């Protein structure tokens, strides 16, 4: 049955439509694949029984001619999405056995479209991290290995478990969330496609908040077309999320093969950072050439405030997080470390419940919002954010998309950078600006590093222009012809 897990989502959909297999068969193959890749520690909760029930129901629907856009397709869900009746942890001890009584808007849409839930994926605690090392259940492992090196590699983060299971062919697709690069960077590290839609494109309702003004749901898949299919289901206005935006959701698949002739592609000078490895720079140039060869016009652009994006991000995101995570106080549910004194109960509960990285960000966030520091940090960071958004809107007056690398390196070993938060934060240097500006962006695998690890290219588009983003990505995907696959799990 291994062959079934080799299919992309769109290929599997076609086979289900043609009756070449059943949803139950497809799901059983993925349940088996998930079991086989357990050493990757990519799942927090597996839900095989639920998956099989959903698959049976899907087969019944299909028999009646009522199949939805994702009917019978097994996918994994980042454990940041609240799933009704299925424990939801955000990879944190503080949530204890929290089992939501409600289903997030995005997962509701997926189930309504017929998708089958395989389980909940590992992640950095509360989505804070770029390595998936900061999880209460331990790190998720990248299915890729560096040539001649046995060390486990990180899958990137925070959506590391989602990336790992999709790369390892144990799920057709997975949901992620991206706050500063948490979909795109793990996609790049694991050789798959990761899409962060425009802020407001997908509802945040029912997704555990990290940084509300930045968090955005998106898919991790093995092809650009799969990402287009997934986004079509996940996207849409939700009255329950005041920051979601009421714009129509186009048919993203329909325009996918439109080509890039005449498309204006911006190459931002400021993304050529000092110590960037030559192989990344070379891949970037190659990507630009591929687009040019298909008729796109390359335009040198400037995004002058890029250098300030990372520091601004690491003020804004922790500030919001420090407030968003205040609700985990040991009062209503989850972990409580008792004490007769209220303040002590709070302190013990939060000291035991939150991991070191989450505590670090809560402290940074509380600090930058404090009286006397607010103007110097939070307010200044917000001004930088405005300037960065302005850089992009000026650039987009002249170009349709912007091309950059996704990350400044390939995947690193588990344990590396764990003691150096600044080095860790630098992973997000290319992904954070689009997050601050709320723009849609995508990472797709475009080549291998010298160590034989996947490298990603990154496209950024105008607000709500995911259609153009996906069209450009499809052109790059075709030119790159990336067909490498991890040596480990899956087959």
């Amino acid at each position, binding site marked *: 049955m291994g062959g079934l897990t080799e299919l992309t989502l769109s290929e599997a959909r076609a086979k289900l439509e043609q009756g070449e297999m059943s949803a139950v068969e497809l799901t059983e193959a993925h349940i088996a694949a998930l079991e086989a890749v357990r050493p990757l520690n990519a799942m927090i909760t597996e839900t095989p029984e639920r998956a099989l029930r959903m698959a049976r129901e899907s087969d019944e629907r299909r028999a009646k001619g009522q199949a939805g856009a994702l009917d019978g397709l097994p996918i994994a869900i980042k454990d940041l999405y609240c799933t009704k009746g299925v424990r939801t942890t955000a990879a944190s001890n503080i949530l204890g056995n929290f089992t939501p009584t409600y289903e997030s808007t995005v997962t509701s849409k997926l189930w309504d479209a017929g998708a089958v839930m395989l389980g909940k994926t590992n992640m950095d605690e509360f989505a804070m991290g770029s390595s998936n090392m900061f999880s209460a259940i331990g790190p998720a492992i990248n299915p890729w290995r560096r040539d001649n090196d046995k060390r486990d590699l990180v899958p990137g983060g925070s959506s590391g478990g989602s990336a790992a299971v999709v790369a390892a062919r144990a799920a057709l697709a997975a949901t992620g969330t991206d706050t500063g690069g948490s979909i795109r960077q793990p996609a790049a590290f694991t050789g798959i496609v990761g899409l962060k839609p425009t802020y407001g494109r997908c509802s945040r*309702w029912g997704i555990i*908040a990290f940084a509300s003004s930045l968090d955005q749901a998106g898919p991790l898949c093995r092809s650009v077309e799969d990402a287009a299919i997934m986004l079509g289901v996940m996207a849409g206005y939700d009255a329950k999320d005041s920051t979601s935006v009421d714009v129509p959701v186009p048919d993203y698949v329909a325009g996918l093969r439109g080509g890039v002739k005449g498309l204006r592609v911006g190459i931002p000078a400021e993304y050529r950072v000092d110590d960037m490895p030559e192989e990344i720079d070379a891949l970037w140039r190659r990507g630009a050439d591929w687009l040019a060869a298909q008729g796109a016009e390359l335009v040198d652009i400037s995004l002058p405030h890029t250098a300030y994006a990372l520091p601004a991000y690491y003020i804004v995101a922790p500030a*919001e997080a420090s*407030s968003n995570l*205040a609700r985990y106080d040991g*009062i209503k549910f989850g972990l409580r470390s008792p004490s007769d004194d209220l303040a002590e109960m*709070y302190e013990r509960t939060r000291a035991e419940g939150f991991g070191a990285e989450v505590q670090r960000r809560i402290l940074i966030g*509380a600090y930058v919002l404090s009286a006397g520091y607010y103007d110097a940090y939070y307010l200044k960071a917000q001004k930088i954010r405005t300037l960065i958004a302005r850089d992009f809107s000026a650039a987009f007056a002249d170009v349709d998309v912007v091309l950059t690398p996704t990350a400044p390196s390939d995947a690193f070993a588990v344990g590396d950078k764990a003691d150096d938060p600044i080095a860790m934060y630098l992973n997000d240097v290319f992904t954070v600006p689009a997050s601050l500006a709320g723009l849609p962006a995508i990472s797709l695998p475009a080549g291998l590093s010298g160590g034989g690890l996947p490298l990603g290219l990154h496209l950024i588009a105008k607000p709500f222009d995911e259609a153009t983003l996906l069209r450009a990505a499809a052109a790059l995907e075709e030119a790159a012809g990336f067909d490498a696959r991890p040596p480990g799990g899956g087959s």
Partner: protein
Amino acid sequence: MSLMKGATGDWEVVIGCEVHCQVVSAAKLFSGAGTAFGAEPNTQVSLVDAAMPGMLPVINKVCIEQAVRTGLALGAEINLVSVFDRKNYFYPDLPAGYQISQFTRPIVGYGTLTLDGLEDGVSREIGITRLHLEQDAGKSIHDRDPRTTHVDLNRAGVALMEIVSEPDMRSAEEAGAFVTKLRSILRYIGSCDGNMEEGSLRCDVNVSVRRPGAELGTRTETKNVNSIRFIKRVIEIEARRQIEILEDGGRVTQETRLFDADKGETRPMRSKEESHDYRYFPDPDLLPLVLEQSWVDEIAKGLPELPDAKRARFIADYGLTDADTDQLVAERESADYFEAVAKGRDARIAANWVIHDLFGQLNRAEVEIGQSPVSASALGGLLDLIADGSISGRTAKDVFAEMFISGQDAAAIVEAKGLGQISDQGEIETMVDSLIADNPDQASQFADNPKVIGWFVGRIMQATKGKANPGLVNELLKRKLGE
């Protein structure tokens, strides 16, 4: 200027109020949960109110409209762009760990409120600094169990308007009048029911004292005072306490205090209950609130006549006294009731009956005017019977008392009890003639002593059990005795 006497001279008291008003709305500020008072604990709590993971606030438009109505009624500036901020602090009855409030950009800016009917007869303008919307917290219940605290989240997320005054008041009386007037306006427009017993309207009282003309003194803030009587007491107690400290050479500490009504004192809150650093920042779950001027204009058009305008009109149109007018316009229902009674009748007589007879009975029975057993048209019917001479004013009082108890209309009571006045001239004339004929001695005294007429009136009234029309009796007696 009202001053307080100290041992070393006069002191001026400076008062500002922050009034927390529960917005009249079926649902909470950011969730669809209900807001009814007195529901079973934790039965009016949505996932949003309980701050469950992933839940998001959505602004309730009704609450915005109520805030705008209130701002317009206070003649205040409506900010077309306002921002909701998070006020961060930990407490078990604050499920999110932050309260959504408005800090730097409130929905309503500067306005004013006019106080009339103060003791010195001068009217005074009190500045309204701002009005902002915020969530209420839940309730911590400490007395159910000696070792644990229970939390009721029914109130959590209920919309409050915080109305902040300038430090423009100078006496307990003025502060009491301010809150009374504010409450009256809120009730007129229906944005807050003003029920202080249920906590729908609570006041934080800021008090400082200074020598007349000196710089402002250090203030204290006494939290959550829940009656107008208590507001006045707090001001007197707090001003006296501060004066004593200053006259003893001490300094007033800027702090938050609580009022203990039983002990008749204010005392500092424990430091844990005090604010340290709320780390305010704009709530990223909510976009800035942007209002259309046309929408604000529509709301303005829908405002009812407000107390000041009504007061002026009553004085001008009905010729009522200031004091009577104040009583009538304090509540919109009273004013409406009065106008219904006064329509087509003598307004001053109507005002007298409403203020003295109706309000008196309502107060004794502890009934709101909306539940009055005597409707405005029924009271009007009673006044009509007096006007056309069917009953005397004296009888009308008894009829009114009966109306209040039975709810019957005046004519039915007069009919059933035979209380109708005898106004038949022929009937009374016959009685007068025979009375004079039977008492020639008294009749002959009339020329020298006209007061003897009273003896005749008394006899007629006695004979008719008071139902004879006194005007007619007098008129006939004068004529007959003078012949």
